[in-house]
């Protein structure tokens, strides 16, 4: 499957997700708009936490529990990439 119009950051982020969570999936097969957690890739909230640590390390964006947008941020690759783009420090 080809990612339909994924940005460079989205593609990098897909790789980071696969690498961090040791998924067998092909990063290019993660659809930018598809649900990341729950049914989609079978990821749970602990995976999301692990991913947030990797994002903090890679992009210098520390996700916080007080962020009201937290659920939206983790809803898809695209939403996550957009939040990183906005908040990244490296």
């Amino acid at each position, binding site marked *: 499957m080809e990612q339909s119009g994924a940005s460079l950051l989205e593609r990098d982020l897909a790789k980071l997700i696969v690498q961090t969570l040791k998924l067998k999936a092909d990063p290019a097969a993660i659809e930018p708009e598809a649900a990341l957690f729950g049914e989609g890739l079978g990821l749970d*909230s602990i995976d999301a936490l692990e991913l947030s640590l990797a994002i903090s390390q890679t992009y210098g964006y520390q996700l916080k529990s007080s962020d009201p947008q937290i659920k939206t941020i983790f809803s898809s690759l695209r939403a996550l990439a957009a939040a990183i783009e906005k908040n990244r420090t490296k």
Partner: protein
Amino acid sequence: MSLAWRQQSERGSHTGIRVMVWVAQVLGRPVARLLLYPICVYFLLGSWPSRRAIAQFRKLALGRPAGWGELFRHYHAFASTILDRVYFLRGQFDLFDIRFHGLDVLDRELAKGRGCVLLGAHLGSFEAVRAMGLLGRQLDIRILMDEQNAPLIRGLTQALNPAMADTVIQSGGVQALLQVKECLERGGIVGAMGDRVTPQDHAVACTFFGHEAQFPTGAIRLARVVQAPVVLFFGLYRGGNRYEVRLESFDDDALLSHNRRDADVTRDVQRYAGRLEEICRLAPDNWFNFYDVWHRSN
């Protein structure tokens, strides 16, 4: 373990709990404890799914069928811990004789400044964790739990100690886990249960009293992800006004010599189940999972 516990409604109405709180506070613990007798007889005779589960557990744990007296004692231990929760929540620890074992384990972990995960079970009273504040320790304790499935307990906590209700982190979702991570980063303690499977949980099959039972991996995986040490916590009820708090280190050498994230979670959950089994043998009346634990979940 199985999801069967979720299918059992919490017996005892809100009114019943309110009456109990009133009796506990106004008439005092000795009188309230007398009332536990008819209440326990009522549940012993009236709640056969829980009675069957207790009988099944005791037979496996003790290797012989349980008589009515033993079943009654089991209900009575449970009812006692529920009643004592009222006093624990109000900070009336002077009513109790609480013995602590292994506080040095906790001190050692906390001295490293990165907090720790206290891994407990529905065995005795996890609420006894609050008693640790007694020992002159300023502990930042949060408890990760599925409060939505314990509305009575939640109501009780909110009524008696709203500040303590705020220390509960409602499990489920990344926001809760970020709260856990933030608490640990401040050097705080996060309490979690390792024995009941919820629909959101990953679970693995473990040997528990010689038979296969499902245990959730969540608490241990969480600790590994945030690289926090795990300390086992058991608040055992020992009859009368006696409690025994046991803290034990859990992270073994094999784990410490590797990156925590790569440790074998399944192996660790089995180690937890094994230790839980040993503690259950020491205090079988404290087992408060009143459902068929060995039933395979789907």
